[in-house]
């Protein structure tokens, strides 16, 4: 079976501007990333700021051009030409900040109409908008409202409805619930899960929230400085993380129960401090067999 999304050796480097506009070097935001997502799967990409996760999302959406490597949707490369309209129909994105991704001067209905007009939807557009709003559990008359009249959770539902308008196969969810309260987050996640089965969707779920990742994604890839350092089914990666960065990431999550605290890996403290990722990885490099030789540990 053809994977819905495949990234092959995807790389993106940015030039650093030196003095007087001269090139001061390059930074590799995404470094040789490869992954494949099968139909109906929820793939989670976990990373902190600077990991390259947003850059990857932007390249998949055609907002940024990769330096090298390939992106295939349903087996067809989307590079080479400008992102075509067909590509735009197959892949859609839900952005992080619901307040920013909806045009403040347009009503909900007008925002959801945008993809319908862009792709020349031939059916009854008003009815379709009503259907979409119902799909995300919003009343149909919300179509006349402006974004500032809606709560964060409602705005994000509108963003989801808009992304689903032309029946994409892949949804890229870029931190879709980070800006929402936890109780609202739970409802939006429930909605997203329901839609996978109902609409036969596939998700690329990008987040820094590991607890959420554990519950929502099926396969997870841990992104550090532009590279996937560990990947696998979410239960096994969390139960037995192999890479030091994954261990540090899971150990850093503030949890609310003893059971979860027991699950977190032990991280050796350096000088009484929790080490940064660089320090931890340097430690591993310098002593290939670190024993349990430090006095205290995190968690």
């Amino acid at each position, binding site marked *: 079976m053809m994977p819905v999304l495949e990234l092959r050796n995807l790389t993106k480097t940015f030039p650093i501007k030196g003095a007087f506009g001269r090139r001061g070097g390059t930074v590799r935001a995404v470094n040789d990333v490869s992954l494949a997502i099968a139909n109906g799967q929820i793939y989670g990409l976990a990373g902190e700021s600077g990991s390259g996760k947003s850059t990857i999302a932007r390249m998949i959406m055609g907002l940024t051009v990769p330096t090298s490597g390939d992106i295939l949707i349903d087996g067809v490369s989307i590079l080479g030409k400008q992102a075509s309209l067909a590509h735009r129909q197959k892949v859609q994105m839900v952005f992080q900040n619901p307040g920013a991704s909806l045009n403040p001067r347009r009503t909900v209905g007008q925002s959801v109409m945008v993809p319908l007009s862009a792709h020349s939807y031939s059916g009854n557009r008003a009815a379709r908008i009503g259907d979409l709003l119902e799909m995300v559990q919003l009343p149909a008359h919300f179509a006349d409202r402006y974004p500032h009249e809606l709560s964060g959770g409602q705005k994000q539902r509108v963003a989801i409805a808009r992304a689903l308008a032309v029946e994409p196969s892949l949804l890229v969810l870029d931190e879709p619930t980070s800006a929402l309260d936890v109780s609202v987050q739970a409802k939006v996640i429930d909605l997203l899960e329901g839609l996978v089965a109902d609409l036969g969707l596939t998700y690329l779920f990008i987040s*820094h929230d590991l607890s959420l990742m554990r519950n929502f994604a099926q396969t997870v890839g841990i992104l550090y400085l532009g590279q996937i350092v560990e990947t696998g089914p979410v239960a096994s990666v969390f139960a037995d993380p192999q890479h030091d960065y994954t261990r540090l990431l899971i150990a850093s999550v503030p949890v609310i129960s003893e059971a979860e605290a027991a699950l977190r890996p032990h991280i050796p403290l350096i000088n009484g401090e929790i080490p940064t990722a660089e320090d931890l990885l340097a430690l591993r490099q310098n002593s290939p067999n670190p024993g349990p030789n430090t006095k205290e540990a995190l968690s």
Partner: protein
Amino acid sequence: MTALLSVQNLSVSFTTYGRTAQVLHNVSLDVPEGAQIALVGESGSGKSVTMKTIMGILPIPPARIEGGAVLFDGRDLLTMPERDRQRLRGTAMSMVFQDPMSSLNPVFTIKDQLGTILKYADRRLGRDRNTRARLARVHEVLAQVRMRDPERVAAAFPVQLSGGMRQRVLIAMALLSEPRLLIADEPGTALDVTTQAQILKLLKDLVRENRLALLMITHNLGVVRETSAYTYVMNKGRIVEHGHTAALFDAPRDAYTRSLIAAVPRLTGREA
């Protein structure tokens, strides 16, 4: 034993566009000396308004204090003359701000900003310290927040520091005048989770070493469990439940608290 900080039956209303709404209803909470207390609530719960009222930075029109008292060391902050209030603020009671990006002035060095704060705090307390002594104190607090090279950090501009380091600077700012109560407003929310873990551990260590009282204001239940022994839960302007953190999380009594805890995703995955 009376608490260091005691909020008693605080009620606050806000008036916008000619309409008045009650945002705090009879809020009461106590922070004993040296204790670590959390005030947790989602957006719109009123926790920010409570914090601003305690710190005295609530904009009085459009807000209005309908009733109640905020006692610090037994004295009511709400009825205190402004000059006495000024003396308390930033000295006995100080705040760690939320956003390290916007809370530091980008055009001044760290030592300039901390130095200025210290100068005015000294003036309010009637203390006399010369420039060199002030700089020494600035280096001292930067070392307290575990900066590896306090002199270099002091001479730097905020833009040269990472997010985690800036948050430590904000904590250092709060420690300058040896406060007895630290109010932390969503510390680490704007940071990565690994950096946040470092900052929370730092806060816990500092609070223990200096025997400070800590009032942690947050929406993150995990942060509450990591840092606080006693928790107040707020919803729609009211305290709906309070108790010892472990007991509260294990057996919440109030329906809202229960739904809040149930909504938090677990690292252990879904239970059956």
